[in-house]
């Protein structure tokens, strides 16, 4: 076990875990931040997507020991009131079906829009292709990313 001071959502969290523990399980089990989901554990589904220094990262394959001083943002910290443009768009377009994949989808979309405020359809598809949605809400996800891009300017 080792002590880690993690910078998550603008706060510092302490975690006492083994160094190889994936960030995903530190968030979920140690810190109670369960918005980040487990879907595959091998970087194939995107359910566990968080931002590490603003870029979309699969927390299921990132050992806590590799996080260091990086700034981590989870779905809980994406916005204070749940009104990030991507979150607003997700509600307006009524994207969620079961909803389980959506935190990861939102985090991927938010990272995309941060580096490319007006992505083309192709760019949206490329960025979102790593996120599985077993319910098949892809049409609405694509639409919601576009709606969000009109909100961010």
């Amino acid at each position, binding site marked *: *076990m080792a002590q880690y001071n993690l910078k998550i959502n603008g706060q510092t969290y302490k975690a006492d*875990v*083994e160094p*190889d*523990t*994936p960030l995903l*399980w530190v968030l*979920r*089990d*140690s810190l*109670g*931040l*369960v*918005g*980040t*989901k*487990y*879907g*595959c*554990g*091998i970087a*194939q*589904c995107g*359910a566990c997507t968080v931002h590490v220094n603003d870029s979309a990262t699969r927390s299921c394959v990132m050992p806590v020991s590799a996080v260091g001083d990086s700034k981590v943002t*989870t*779905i*809980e910290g*994406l916005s204070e009131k*749940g009104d990030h443009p991507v*979150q607003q768009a*997700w*509600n307006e377009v*009524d994207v*969620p*079906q*079961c*909803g*389980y*994949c*959506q*935190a990861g989808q*939102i985090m991927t979309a938010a990272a995309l829009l941060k580096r490319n405020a007006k992505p083309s359809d192709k760019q949206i*598809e*490329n960025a*979102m*292709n*790593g*996120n*599985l*949605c*077993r*319910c*098949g*809400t*892809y*049409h*609405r*996800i*694509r639409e919601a990313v576009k709606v969000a891009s009109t909100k961010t300017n």
Partner: protein
Amino acid sequence: MSNLTNTNRRDFMKLAATAGGGVLLGFHWRNADAKPAVLDAAAEAAAPSIEFNSYLAVAPDGKITIFSPNPEVGQGIKTAFPIVVAEELDVDWQQVHVAQAPLDTVKFQRQVAGGSGSIPHSWKRLRQAGATARQLFINTAAQRWGVAPEQCTTESGAVLLKGSKKKLTYGELAEEAAKMPTPTDVPLKDPKDFKLIGSSIRNVDNQDIITGKPLFGLDFTREGMLYAVVERPKAFGMKLKSVDSAAAKAVPGIVDVVTFDNSVAVVGKSTWQVMKARKALKIDYEKEAALESTSDHDRIFDELLNSDKNEVRRKEGDVDKAFKSAAKVVKSEYQCPFLSHAPMEPMNFFAHVRPDGAELIGPTQTPERAQGEAAKFLGIPKEKITVDMTRMGGGFGRRLAADFVMEAVKISALTKAPIKLIWSREDDMTGGDYRPAVKYRFEAALDDKGNMIGYKLRGAGINAGNPTRENNFPAGAVDNLLIDSAEHKSAITTGPWRAPITNFLAAAEQSFLDEVAQAAGKDPIQFRLELLEKAKTAPAGDVRYDVDRMIAVTKLAAEKSNWGKDKTKNQGFSLYYSHLSYVAQVGEVEMKAGKPELTKIIAAVDCGIVINQSGARQQVMGGVVDGFGHAMYGSLSFTDGVPDQSNFNKYRIIRMQEIPEVEVHFVDNGIDPTGLGEPALPPTGGAVANAFFKATGKRLYKQPFIEGLSGKVES
């Protein structure tokens, strides 16, 4: 699922006061042979068979809570049910707060998410619940004003006195209403006055979902709980021989290792620790049944299809004679592999078994089954076991089973600790309960005018039960028909997978009918319309589908797709009736750089009245994406009893770049609504295969289609 619905009951309403002084309206029924009575609290206590199916509660401060008793698995029931109640209650949607009710077999009936059955089961009950409460508020206000109830009306959660400015909100009336007798025989709204039903209402959990609130089973935690993972035999057909758990127990954070059935559970302080420790288990297994490979199944299918010991499912006329006299015979075989349900949220459950009872919390499509199996295992009455349903991260039928619930129960019983059981994705994908692999042989006899005078279907499945649906179209439309089936019993476990059996049967049959139409020299839609006409005017035996509704969706799909008008489009048609809803689809394939690509699917859907446009549309789009994705890519194969795929790196789920455009059209016929969780999926594979045939001239006889399409169609 129909066996879960007891129709031999009589409904009536029951009123009670809430602790907060408001009014609570329950929907009760009891066995028809019991004496119907307006129940008061004493009568209710004396009549244990009374059940509620839905509640709404109105607090004096005006807050309206509608309880949704059925498990939410992504089918949108937690939004749709309350819409129906709110419509008849005549309140604005903004006034409504929706809450998930726990399992309560006394208060509710059919707390199941499966078979697309919740809406048809509850439609009238929910409307009556809302309408009865509305009438109660009218009666209460009328009494206070000293007028006849007929002089009152309602709007936005308030009673109005016609021709005056007098108005009392339901909240203001709640305390008084709780003391009033429950109205009976309350009229329902005329559907043309519906305001909420038929509009677009967003998922009631949206805000919680998009902000990452703990909603799902996997998110549930309890002070002092321990995490558990279970190691199961790697191969179907193996059983546990011996376990050496010393190394696993030495891993930091591990509290216990327990063994039950063929399973070894590692229990500890965190998910990662138990997952790691599990790898340190040393387990010996021994063979207890055949260790089957996919190549064995291929051979077994052929044996079954050629055997003469099949179980006859339906027989009409004289098939042998029809085939002997036929001008043309068409014969084809279609095959599909096993599939994993692979819901995004893997199986998990919380169980706390105590000396005096048990508490179960988690994602289940059948809370009552979970309760029943736990009660049986623990040897305690069902009443001592509570079940709370969390939102489910998909299910697709996997959560109809209670195996994972029982694992949590057993581990908790053995360790005497509150247990949170977690399945990894690998556990989920290799853990069985699959969509069974099936192979069909179809034969059709055509007369010299191209009429289908004979039809044979033989289904062979691995643990598939009856892999046919013998009363589905074209049964009823062909004079000489024989449908039979055979089953191979395997150690590989199977279970219902979204639209059980029809998820592939429909694709196979709709492809075959396309072949028959081609052989008859007829347009595929015209060919089906002729068969439907026959089912209507000169049916061959029972017709268990509504022919007119079949025709209507067919025509709607033809119209919306401009069927056959644009010769540059490669269109394929498919039509299927399942789970009480009717769906026709047209797939369109374009050649792109010499490769065929499915670009669009047009779906015409008749599920009767559409309760929630937004939810219903997404159910169809999602069903089509699911049907297309699995038809194209889905495959779980075996080597010596071990699944060859164990995670999404090898088990291919459709991704955003692969989806076609999907267009959804609903038939507007005012018929009572039916479910949509499943019916959009079955026809998709057929529309896709037929469109690919149009483009390439090649039939796709085997799923996943990607194997038949790759490489060979460039020329």
